């Protein structure tokens, strides 16, 4: 019985120490684990030090309503990404995912250009965790109970 108890303490103690170590490592590497920065986080970073123009990073947020446009060349798309606090202007030339539209959550990879705009090389759609049939979504919108960010 005592030997079992001792083994129990050894295993539990080992687990506790290891879990703490893992937690410390993850906290130290938080900057590298996050997949994207929100517009607010990016603004805070740029305040601290300007981001070099060729530094690649990802930003994420919602495509602002009414912000989608095209440049004169007809293929470059422009839109604004927002987290309802800060806004980033984005320029992108390429294929957009099916879910992309105004009000949709997206993640864009690219770099900050000299004019302060974010030049994206890839745009990914991010969807939320809500699942429902179309009819329910429409009924919710009609009743004014809609809480989603999406159209």
């Amino acid at each position, binding site marked *: 019985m005592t030997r079992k108890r001792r083994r129990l303490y050894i295993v539990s103690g080992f687990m506790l120490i290891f879990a703490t170590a893992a937690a410390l490592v993850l906290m130290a590497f938080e900057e590298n684990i*996050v*997949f994207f920065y*929100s517009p607010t986080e990016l603004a805070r970073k740029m305040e601290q030090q300007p981001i070099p123009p060729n530094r690649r990073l990802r930003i994420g947020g919602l495509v602002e309503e009414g912000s989608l446009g095209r440049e004169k060349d007809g293929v470059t798309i422009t839109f604004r990404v927002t987290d309802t606090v800060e806004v980033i202007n984005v320029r992108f030339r390429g294929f957009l995912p*099916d879910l992309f539209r105004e009000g949709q959550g997206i993640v864009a990879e690219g770099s900050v250009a000299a004019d302060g705009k974010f030049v994206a090389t*890839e745009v990914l*759609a991010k969807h939320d965790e809500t699942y*429902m049939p*179309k009819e329910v*979504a429409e009924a919710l919108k009609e009743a004014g109970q809609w809480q989603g960010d999406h159209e």
Partner: protein
Amino acid sequence: MSMHYFANPARFTRLAGRIQPLAGCLAAILLIVGLYLALVQAPADYQQGETVRIMFVHVPSAWMALFCYSFLAVASAVALIWKHPLADLAAKASAPIGAGFTFLALVTGSLWGKPMWGTWWVWDARLTSVLILLFLYLGYMALWQAIEDSQKAAKAAAVLALVGAVNVPIIKFSVDWWNTLHQPASVLRMDGPAIHPSMLWPLLIMALAFKAYFVTLLLARMRMELNLRRIRALRLAERSS
């Protein structure tokens, strides 16, 4: 009934032999019903359309990937601390099943990611931690094979299983702790499920089907391991006589 009641291999084999076909039938029935509800009956999603049906395989696989590892880790701890004779067996038997579910979750997730996100794979915290889970399973299985003395192998593998257990909460909470492309949990979350009941029920039935399938495979693998041990023991006895 003490924990050592089923430590008797003969008693375990008898009981497992009775439960295994029942669990197998249950898995088959639930899978047929679940797939019909998921692929035919459930409505298309307001946002994702028909693609959402991948969820009914992807989510139960991912749950089982985590469940199998938790089971493996608990069995390993029981083996290390209480030296329960069936615990090593249960841990060893659950590893390939868990690896299979993890692989299925990764593949279906990738197939889902391409049409919805626009990419097969990204290195975000959720996807990366699940890939690490697959490697943990494979490493665990390799360790059993690499050490010839089965008692030493059991001990080494159990320690690896416990070290890897740290990854389980990381996977579960990765979507809450860090910005990820993967969305947060839909079912197991604080404010209740964010899935409409017409989609939640098929999902839960599929999850039960996967669980019953796990029980079936686990018992089959454990009985096989026990038989292999008996064969080895008999051969040894024969040689020494």
